């Protein structure tokens, strides 16, 4: 009886009796969720445009953060370093299109996927070779301290990150859902040849999409880097983006956002209220278990395109 009480009643009692604390947990969850969304968005963009699961997205986050920190360590001011990093990511997009995608046009998706695995290791090595392998601190001028609003403790850094992510996500959602590029992107993802015959410049589309994914990677890299330092493990947050994608659907921008929010708040609430029951660490596996459940019930995700197959 005691166990049932602690699982099904106790946590909710705690939530009701301490609403401010619950609000703090929720805000923390939403903030973390938006940052997951940001990483997941990078995947969605490239998947939508080329049907390729970009294995290197996590490393792109690391690479962007490393470049930014590396430049700042060499005395480049923050804004200039950011501009330069954007330039580097756009140049990277051009290079990837020219060296990796163009020679593989009209190949099977699995071949492009393998190519992104190669890209993953290449970028990882390149980043370490140019900028070194030790952990770097990224100071973006926003102190990691808190203020209170109506008795709720709010972390400045987390709030800034969440706001940035929200704005970026909003802009991208409009950009890709409401414009003709959205249709062009879906067209390219569906059938390269047919898209070409309609005058859609495949190469331009790819460069645009990889550039945008690179810029999203910079934002994610800055936010996560400022929180936990710029180090190799940054590339592993891509792993957390996977459950977000499974929840939201690989082809849906709003899905990436909602998926990120569900996972962010879900794992925080699970950790805080149910964590003590199992000795903690719910945060580490919650996302994956949820993703697994989704795969069984709704494999296309919440917003993904239904899988239609003629038999």
């Amino acid at each position: 009886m005691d166990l049932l009480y602690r699982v099904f009643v106790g946590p909710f009692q705690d939530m009701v009796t301490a609403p401010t604390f619950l609000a703090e947990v929720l805000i923390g969850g939403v903030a973390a969720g938006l940052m997951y969304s940001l990483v997941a968005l990078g995947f969605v963009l490239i998947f939508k445009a080329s049907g390729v699961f970009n294995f290197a997205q996590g490393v792109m986050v690391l690479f962007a953060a490393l470049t930014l920190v590396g430049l700042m360590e060499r005395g480049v001011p923050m804004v200039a370093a950011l501009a330069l990093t954007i330039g580097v990511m756009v140049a990277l997009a051009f290079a990837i299109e020219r060296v990796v995608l163009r020679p593989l046009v009209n190949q099977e998706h699995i071949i492009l996927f393998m190519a992104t695995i190669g890209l993953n290791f290449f970028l990882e090595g390149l980043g370490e070779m140019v900028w070194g392998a030790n952990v770097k601190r990224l100071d973006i001028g926003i102190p990691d301290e808190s203020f209170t609003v109506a008795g709720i403790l709010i972390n400045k850094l987390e709030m800034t990150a969440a706001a940035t992510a929200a704005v970026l996500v909003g802009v991208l959602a409009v950009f890709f859902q409401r414009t003709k590029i959205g249709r062009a992107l879906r067209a390219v993802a569906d059938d390269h040849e047919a898209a070409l015959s309609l005058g859609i410049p495949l190469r331009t589309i790819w460069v645009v999409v990889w550039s945008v994914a690179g810029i999203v990677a910079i934002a994610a890299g800055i936010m996560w880097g400022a929180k936990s330092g710029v180090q190799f493990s940054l590339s592993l947050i891509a792993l957390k983006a996977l459950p977000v994608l499974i929840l939201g659907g690989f082809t849906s921008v709003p899905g990436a956002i909602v998926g990120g929010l569900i996972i962010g708040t879900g794992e925080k609430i699970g950790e805080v209220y149910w964590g003590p029951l199992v000795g903690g660490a719910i945060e580490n596996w919650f996302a994956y278990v949820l993703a697994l459940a989704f795969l069984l019930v709704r494999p296309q995700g919440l917003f993904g395109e239904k899988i239609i197959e003629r038999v």
Partner: protein
Amino acid sequence: MRPAPPPPPALLEVDGVSVRFGAVQALDQVSLSVRRGEIIAIIGPNGAGKTTLLNVISGFYHPSEGRIRFEGRDRTRLAPYDVAALGIARTFQNVALFKGMSVLDNIMTGRLLKMKGSFLLDALYWGPAKAQELEHRARVERIIDFLEIQAIRKTPAGRLPYGLQKRVELARALAAEPTLLLLDEPMAGMNVEEKEDMCRFILDVNGEFGTTIALIEHDMSVVMDISDHVAALDYGRKIADGTPAEVRTDQVVIDAYLGVSHA
């Protein structure tokens, strides 16, 4: 007596084009002249190089020798999307629709080239972008009416039966308002009724919009009925070129189809 008016200049001129894949000579010095406003049929046995010729015209392959002129300008080495921008639309032998997208969206992609404005401005300017979308939508609806596919507007293209997919592909090509329309076996795999519909559409497109059409077709009765001009290919070479009546009675063409040995 006044002299007869000079023949109208050719819309498309293929001049001595050759394409080679490894040891296979897919096209060997093929020349072809397509006049503005005509329906030209390209015929020939399997492997004769018909689709290759279409691919060269639409920029998917580039010839190893020879030139291609469209509306008087050389465009031998353009990429497919640049060819599309010149006003050449095409369909594919194996139907290349965007299967996950609705019929309407498929046809709307055909209008991408006609839509103005950069990607970024498009995202910011709500009013004009919306007006533009509506205008294009209206044109697409006319094409949908024209091809009698109103009922399947919202259906995902991948779910349609083959004959209708071919019709939607034609609609998408028409949405680009092409000067030259290339159809790769528009009637392959269709039943008699579907073929008759397709013939009617092709003739109507040609008659109402003045679109020049080059098509590949195997059904000889269809070819003879709808085309103004027939060119026959065999083993990558052009073996005949003329009116349907001329080509039908051409001994070389008959031999090619009946399989006389090429000794």
